[in-house]
């Protein structure tokens, strides 16, 4: 290729992970003083893996673990990958600030309003919990093709993609913020970072998963509750997948090491929840050993995988 002379690290994938990778890339290029260039694309986790498994990019940003079709494609093309967690993404459930009846929600209640059977039947707040007003409920969620949606349905309803269809979906979370901020009957969910920057327009809802072993009662998402594992089940790790072959190039190796060394501070800066410090260290070791494969066995979003499982090697 014509740009072989320029040392280039190519990354593509999820828009959720994009801000973290972008921050890392920015700092990395400053440190390298322009000797290495990094490109970060957004074509979704699925699109990212598609390119990754064709060998078109070195690293893929993934808001969910690799799926079996993708794993198969990679195998077919002889691409081996190293799975590295980089941060937590808390999923926040939000209502309009004028909403004065919702103090918290249980996972059961969330399921009641989101499951496929709710479509066309659960249309009023009063159907969720007795005593809530007789008003229509308007639901907002991320695009049904997003990792956030995938994870939410799996965590709440039990099966990824299992959801009612009559809610307002958008790829663009700012659009959702706008929707919820202007509609007193709205309820929606999306990445915590969007709440952080729109605190005045939104009201955050604490979630009770009904399991007292990881924190009693309703829990608000925060760095602490997510990291301690008490904000359950709506927090999920996000990943990068590095091609083993690309990792042999010094610039990729350096970049990934830099990533894992700085992901803690940078992910917090852009509104995500950093992993515990030792996890990053172990991830780095895993990378240095070039341990390939996925601990999820190609099943996609999976509950109950502890953070320590992720970096086993």
């Amino acid at each position, binding site marked *: 290729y014509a740009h072989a002379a320029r040392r280039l690290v190519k990354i593509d994938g999820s828009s959720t992970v994009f801000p973290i990778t972008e921050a890392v890339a920015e700092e990395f290029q400053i440190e390298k003083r322009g000797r290495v260039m990094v490109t970060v694309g957004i074509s979704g986790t699925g699109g990212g893996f*598609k390119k990754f498994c064709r060998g078109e990019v070195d690293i893929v940003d993934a808001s969910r673990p690799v799926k079996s*079709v993708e794993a198969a494609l990679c195998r077919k093309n002889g691409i081996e990958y190293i799975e590295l967690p980089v941060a937590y993404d808390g999923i926040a459930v939000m209502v309009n600030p004028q909403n004065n009846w919702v103090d918290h929600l249980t996972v059961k209640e969330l399921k009641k309003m989101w499951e496929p059977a709710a479509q066309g039947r659960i249309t009023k707040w009063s159907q969720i919990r007795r005593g809530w007003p007789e008003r229509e409920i308007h639901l907002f969620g991320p*695009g049904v093709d997003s990792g956030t949606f995938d994870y939410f349905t799996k965590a709440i309803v039990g099966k990824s993609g299992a959801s009612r269809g009559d809610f307002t979906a958008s790829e663009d979370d700012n659009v959702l913020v706008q*929707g919820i901020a202007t509609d007193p009957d709205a309820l929606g969910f999306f990445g915590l970072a969007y709440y952080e920057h729109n605190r005045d327009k939104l009201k955050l809802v604490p979630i009770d998963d009904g399991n007292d072993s990881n924190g009693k009662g309703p829990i608000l998402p925060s760095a602490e509750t997510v990291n301690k594992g008490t904000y359950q089940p709506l927090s999920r790790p996000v990943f990068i997948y590095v091609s083993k072959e690309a990792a042999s190039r010094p610039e990729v190796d350096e970049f990934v090491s830099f990533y894992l060394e700085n992901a803690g501070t940078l992910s917090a800066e852009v509104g995500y929840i950093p992993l515990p410090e030792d996890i990053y260290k172990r991830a780095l070791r895993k990378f240095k050993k070039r341990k390939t494969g996925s601990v999820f066995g190609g099943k996609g979003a999976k509950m109950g995988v502890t953070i320590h499982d992720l970096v086993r090697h």
Partner: protein
Amino acid sequence: MKSFLDRRSRQRIFERGIHAALLLCASLSIFTTIGIILALFFETFDFFKEVSIIEFLTDTQWTPLFVDKHFGILSLVAGTFIVSLIAMCVAIPLGILCAIYLSEYSSPRFREVVKPILEVLAGIPTVVYGYFALLFVTPLLKSFIPGLSGFNALSPGIVMGIMILPMVSSMSEDAMHAVPSSLREGAYALGATRFQVATKVVVPAALSGIMSSFVLAVSRAVGETMIVTIAAGQQPRFSLNPLVPIETITAYIVQVSLGDTPAGTIEHKTIFAAGMTLFIFTLALNLISNWLKERFREEYR
């Protein structure tokens, strides 16, 4: 005595070369079409191995990304239809009026200034229109249409109509401008008002150009992506109610293009089937318009 025998063989070869090069340029358009069909065909073909074409064309739900999958393109078609319809309801009357004003009423100075300003409307990135629809027009509409959802077909439809207005007005104005002034004079000399000249003489004579502008505008509306992606919500719905969220074919393609769906799965192939539908849609539109144009022209030579 001069001879006409061929003394220019070098020039001849040059001429042939030019001819071939030009032919190549022209036939590139054919290759483009073939390319489009090929780019869409294989995955569409795979798609229809798994989903029956009957379901595709008759089911009224479109939920390929949910657990309970339905592949009824009609919901997306309905969304595309309603938004385009609203856009055309805005763009055609306004565009024609605007064109008539510029071509028949206004001073040349006014036209020279206003026409290009309107054309700038067409050059604004559609992303900008999308946010304008969402953040400005929808709240505005909400204040007098209480039942309006935050995302709906109406607001992006209107904004899209405004966006394609210059296309209609500019091309129609060009067509009207090209109508020989002798025709206008003929009518004025009979005591016709400008209105009568415009509607009974100029518009009919320019009809074929005006129709072309409509067709291009409709195609643009049908194919417009970012405005609807941002402001129409993403709820495929088999309904022609403009007040509720809908999804168009294009918005769906962007959604999956940017989404998490793995390539090679049936969910991913839907975008090619949807793209093919869109392509056939616009093709049909153009063929119909071609036919209309042949039929309704008042040729003035």
